[in-house]
């Protein structure tokens, strides 16, 4: 499964970057995060509640940030395992300053296995895209309120 897109934030690049490096913001950005704790440099452990239709469950996830190039680029990898399957997603986030605002390009790929895939495959991509859009809107709102 692949995801790709861009988003324009009405905020300067440093503020967007700062938010994207803040674990509390990440926790609210990612779908269904119930707990997120740093366990090392740019490594976090999270508990997420994920579901597609009837296939829902609590997932243990490891989130790793790498290729960190402030304030322009990082790679995020999410490895989640739960009773209904596993998700191994990796993607990049690129920020560009544009006239006092910030344009984000994101691109990622996820390997999904188990019931999550076999029962939910047809819904997976639209659901993931919806969650990303939701997350980005949340981020926008947070940036505005910060």
């Amino acid at each position, binding site marked *: 499964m692949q995801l790709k897109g861009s988003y324009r934030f009405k905020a300067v690049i440093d503020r967007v970057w700062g938010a994207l490096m803040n674990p509390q913001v990440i926790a609210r950005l990612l779908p269904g995060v119930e707990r997120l704790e740093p366990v090392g440099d740019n490594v976090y452990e999270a508990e997420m509640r994920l579901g597609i239709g009837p296939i829902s*469950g609590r997932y243990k996830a490891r989130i790793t940030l790498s290729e960190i190039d402030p304030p322009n680029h990082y790679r995020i990898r999410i490895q989640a395992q739960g*009773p*209904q*399957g*596993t998700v*191994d997603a990796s993607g990049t986030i690129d920020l560009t300053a544009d006239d006092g605002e910030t344009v984000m390009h994101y691109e990622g790929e996820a*390997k*999904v*296995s*188990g*019931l*999550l*895939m*076999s*029962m939910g*495959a*047809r819904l997976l991509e639209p659901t993931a895209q919806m969650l990303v859009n939701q997350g980005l809107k949340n981020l926008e709102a947070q940036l505005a309120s910060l």
Partner: protein
Amino acid sequence: MATRYFGVAMKRREDPRFITGRGTYVDDLTLPGLVYAAMVRSPHAHARIKAIHKEKALQHPGVIAVFTGKDMVESGVKSLPCGWLLPGMKLPPHYPMAVDKVRHVGEIVAVVIAQDRYTAEDAAELVEVEYEPLPAVADGAKALQPGAPAVHDEAPDNVCFRWSIGDREKTDEAFRRAHRTVKVELVNQRLIPNAIEPRAAMAQYNPATDEYTLWVTSQNPHVHRLLMAAFVLGIPEHKLRVISPDVGGGFGSKIFLYPEETIVTWAAKQVGRPVKWTARRRESFVSDAHGRDHITEAELAVDEKGKILGMRVKTIANLGAYLSTFAPAIPTYLYGTLLSGQYEIPTIYCEVTGVFTHTTPVDAYRGAGRPEATYVVERLMDLMARELGEDPAEFRRKNFIPPDKFPYQTPVALQYDSGNYEGALNKALEAINYKELRRRQEELRKQGRYIGIGFSCYIEACGIAPSQVVGSLGAQAGLWESALVRVHPTGKVTVYTGSHTHGQGHETAFAQIVADELGIPIEDVEIVHGDTGSVPFGMGTYGSRSAPVGGSAIVLSLQKIKEKARKIAAHLLEAAEEDVVFEDGKFYVKGVPDRFKTFQEVALQAYLAHNYPPGLEPGLEASSFYDPKNFTFPFGTHICVVEVDPETGKVKILRYVAVDDAGRIINPLIAEGQVHGGIAQGIGQALLEGAIYDENAQLLSASLLDYALPRADDLPAFEIDHTVTPCPHNPLGVKGIGETGTIAATAATVNAVMDALAPFGIRHIDMPLTPEKIWRAIQAARAA
């Protein structure tokens, strides 16, 4: 003797109990102290198991035990065996639960036993398995490419076996001097069986007697007992009783020894409580053996007159991750041997590569090899007819084996004992009003409507036999059948058959045979099956073998009963045995029919033995083991008529005519039901069904939401008829009808759609022929 029941379309005696909900299936059974098993299954197609943490599941209230593959192997449990071996075949171990690696989605890694099913299922989610995912391959052809991930260390190139049949040089030579040849690549897609009753097993262990009882959804309980006791769990065979009560459909998927029943039997002793497991539908999708999955390159060569010179076939057969019980036999001896179809083909060469992939194991599914062969043959016949500009019916007719050439030795091992292929073709052509239909097709084409007519002139080989021959081909068992006929003192009869009914209606059809032979009312006959505790060792039901093999065994026992009863009757009538005749349930001296002894009177004397022939043993029962002399060869012609909507690609079946020859028909109503179900499944493959794996070998079509089974509104009213060419070598003249529909319908339907699409120049589309695929093919053809 006047026939009273044989050939009569009686309603099935078992149906009142089924339609009033009084059937007894494994899941209906319960026992004091029963506990429930839930399987923890791999989400990965291929992964190393780094660790399994049971603690959280064990702490869950109501959980009794959690076991892993390691626990089973350490207690001495062996690999599930494979019942058919080919020369040079790789046979990697297949433990009931994965030990170090998982090799397909749905493979069991642990079992949770709990006091109720809900607790077991909940706790199964608490078992934490650490996996190291590895690359996986689902496609048979991709698995053969260099660098493909290996499923087993024992087969680094993923090749399980390479098998061939026929004469390669002679066939190559035939192609060299051919007037015309056609070639096609065909995918016979993977199917998922979906019996209406999911698999289930309940096991009990009695420490006082050291005896086990297993209730299981099995088409062949004795085979289950033998394989499980002798090969896997090391239980003495006489200490394991296997009962397969009412079973709601099998289609092959309930032949095999599976991990789940093995696990519950073993676990019942470990926990000291009876244990039950019933598959959820989504477990069935990943754990019931799948069917088909061939990738084939097929060629046909003809001479100037359009007579076939030879056929060449190369097939990659996807076997899945492990060898299921009869897996190697299906794409070889049940496939390559059928490639002659109904035709005189001087030479055939077929090679098959059996391949391991990271998918659910593949084994027999209704038709098992024969639908795949028929699809190859009948697609080739249509493509060649089109290539030559000949009518597909006449091209077939010209190449039929004529009736005076039987017994006919094919170039692929089988010897057909009988057949009248033109008879069935003519009857089908007449039923469909062929000439008029072709005229109408032309007319409608001018109006932009696309009607297609598809043929399938199929041959089937069923009642796989004789034992000596199948043994020489790699079967690890004989393929005979048993029957014990017990006449009670009042003349009532119980028949213990080694066949197993799971939809076939044996309780009615077999009773019809018995009632006729003994001249007694059918109400006096009881058919018992499916219990190793009461039935003599039997081979069970698959491959349309029950009537020709199981039925024949019953006839042999009835003959023994009648011989003995005649001796008793002669004594009672004070006559010489050879002067006593038996007719309509009465023994009398030839020419004196008024002075008689009824079958019931004789039966009573057999048990009282007060007035009895000296030297004769009391009692009246007989058992027999019938080993057939040959396969039986049902055949027929199916014609499918479709209309394709060129704007949407949707196929509508307008008519479906089936003329089958299954020899003598015991019960036409049951036979018709079998044909209906078979055609529905065959059309399902042609138009709707297909197991889809993604590039990571994840099964995407894993529920009834995504796997399209045919529904009533997908199917027309079938028009069914028969010709009768009795089997010459079994006592009933029967051949078997359980699989004819599935074998014929797929090719007939696809041929019909391709005929409809002929004006577009479309030659072939792989199944299932969904509207999208057809629409795209039409768009591509229009663009070209």
